[in-house]
């Protein structure tokens, strides 16, 4: 139950810059997820907040107060790592009691809180057990319980439990969100799994190459990514570089009506499920189906659009990916008529060629 503010945080690892001027504010009791590919600096950011890694620049404030000079043990910030990292020489109960023992909580109260946490984490009766004897799921729950038992106002989660299988992880995540809500705990979650972020967080930040590229509500990052990498990360597969003139962008497909007006070089990104069958007043194209594969909720169709797809001065052949609805899948070799709804044609102010490594 505390507000976290990061003000221009930069950090380095062995001389290499990892974070570059990250500013972020997470409200009291808010659940915030930081998404990013591995190597984007996510874990380092959490270690900076926890006090385990000194930033080269910037300030960390908890509840409005700078904590840069406060050692990790005095910050009262919980941190759950990717691995449970239970203390091997202590029992399960000993692990849960560790934080309370450091705070010199009286014995009777410690015992009561450990018993309560064992029950909440579904580890009843396993208190005296050696941690080596726990299953992966049990160890994960013990790790969460160990971090929650001291009731930290801010809990940091570094891809927690990523070693567990999906259903187990979902259960633990839901449990964690309930516990956090009950206590008003502020949550800062770091993950590369967008589904996990969408399911857990009220707001999401996208970390790219040590910079915070975008912050917003999940739906916003999903539909209106600020950068090419954000668009890629959130599942867009179609990128059409072009030059915008007011509401239209000239692309290899021809003149494309897009979601928002602008000028100059841009890239139009269209999510594969946003492409609709049939003609429309604008953005209609004919495409050849190259390959169709079943993906459960949709059919993944790889299309090529011959130049110029929609008339006008187009370039060469263009490849698109379309997630066709499950009821009437096309077949490879078919020629289909489709349209790209202008609201789904989102523009980002970069060209794919600008960032060769991306």
């Amino acid at each position, binding site marked *: 139950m505390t507000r976290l503010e990061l003000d221009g945080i930069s950090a380095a690892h062995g001389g290499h810059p990892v974070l570059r001027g990250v500013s972020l504010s997470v409200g009291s009791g808010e659940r915030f997820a930081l998404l990013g590919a591995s190597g984007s600096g996510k874990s380092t950011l959490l270690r900076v907040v926890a006090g385990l890694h000194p930033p080269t620049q910037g300030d960390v404030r908890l509840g409005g107060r700078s904590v840069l000079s406060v050692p990790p043990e005095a910050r009262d910030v919980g941190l759950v790592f990717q*691995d449970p990292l239970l*203390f091997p020489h202590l029992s399960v109960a000993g692990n849960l009691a560790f934080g309370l023992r450091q705070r010199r909580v009286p014995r009777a109260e410690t015992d009561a809180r450990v018993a309560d946490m064992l029950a909440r984490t579904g580890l009843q009766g396993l208190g005296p057990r050696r941690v080596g004897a726990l299953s992966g799921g049990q160890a994960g729950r013990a790790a969460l319980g160990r971090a929650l038992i001291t009731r930290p106002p801010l809990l940091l989660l570094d891809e927690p439990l990523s070693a567990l299988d999906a259903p187990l992880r979902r259960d633990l995540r839901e449990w964690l969100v309930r516990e956090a809500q009950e206590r008003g705990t502020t949550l800062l979650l770091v993950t590369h799994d967008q589904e996990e972020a969408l399911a857990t967080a009220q707001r999401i930040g996208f970390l790219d190459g040590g910079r915070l590229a975008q912050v917003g509500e999940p739906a916003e990052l999903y539909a209106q990514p600020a950068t090419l990498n954000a668009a890629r990360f959130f599942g867009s597969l179609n990128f059409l570089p072009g030059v915008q003139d007011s509401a239209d962008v000239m692309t290899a497909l021809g003149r494309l009506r897009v979601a928002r007006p602008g000028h100059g070089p841009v890239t139009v990104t269209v999510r594969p499920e946003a492409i609709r069958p049939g003609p429309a007043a604008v953005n209609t194209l004919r495409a050849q189906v190259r390959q169709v594969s079943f993906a459960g909720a949709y059919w993944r169709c790889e299309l090529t659009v011959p130049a110029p797809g929609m008339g006008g001065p187009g370039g060469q052949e263009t490849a698109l990916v379309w997630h066709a609805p499950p009821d009437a899948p096309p077949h490879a070799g078919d020629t289909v008529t489709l349209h790209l709804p202008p609201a789904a044609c989102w523009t980002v102010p970069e060209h794919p060629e600008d960032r060769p490594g991306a």
Partner: protein
Amino acid sequence: MSGLSRRPVPRRWTPGSVLLGALLLAGAVGPLLLLGVWSLAGAWFYPALLPGEWSLRAWASALSPDTPLWAPLWGSMWVGTVTAVTATGLALPAARALNGWPGRSRAWVQSALLAPLILPAFAGVMGIQVVFIRLGLADTPAGVVAAHLIVAVPYAVAVLSATFAGYDARLEDAARTLGASRAAVWWQVTLPAVRSGVLVALLMAFLVSWSEYLLTLIVGGAQVRTLPLLLFSAVQGGDYALSGALGLVYLLPPLLGFALLAPRLRSAA
């Protein structure tokens, strides 16, 4: 991990394993038996297979109130214990620090720490003696401990580096975020996690000191009496019965230490 270590190992007797076991046993116990026989021999002359005469004289003299044994035994225990605790105390932070270091610099520092293992003590001992005389450490127990540390620390570092190789330093991060100070992390997380390695390092360093002869003789200048010195003079004096009895006494503390240690190591694995 514990699941694996607890699986019972199938015992199988094959002619090869029996032979190997017999050889190992003979190699380990044979000399001890010989020591035992010597210590009880009254008169034993070539070519008799066994002593012609048995006697408790050597044991009576070794265990009598005015035995020459007590002072050296006490000296060995004292020097060994102080050496073991100091060497382990020095090696612990070194091994912990090496755990997090990048490859090449670690290899260099590790080689430097282990160098005294490779260089023969003989080569260095005269130099050590000259330096210790200047420092006023020659002929003192502190000087002997310092000299023993030169050989004991590398063993302790070797044992503890191996222990820390399997140590996850993120445990310390977890402990810090749970509210443990640096000191609390060291006592409550790091040390317990490497406890079995610490016990082995203590024993190794103690054994190194316990069996050190040359350094004790030269640096201690016969002022610091330890068991190996006594044993050497007994052997040189030609009293094989007394040497046998002293030899067996000499073996006892290390065996005792190992017997005490072994069950603790198993439970910590």
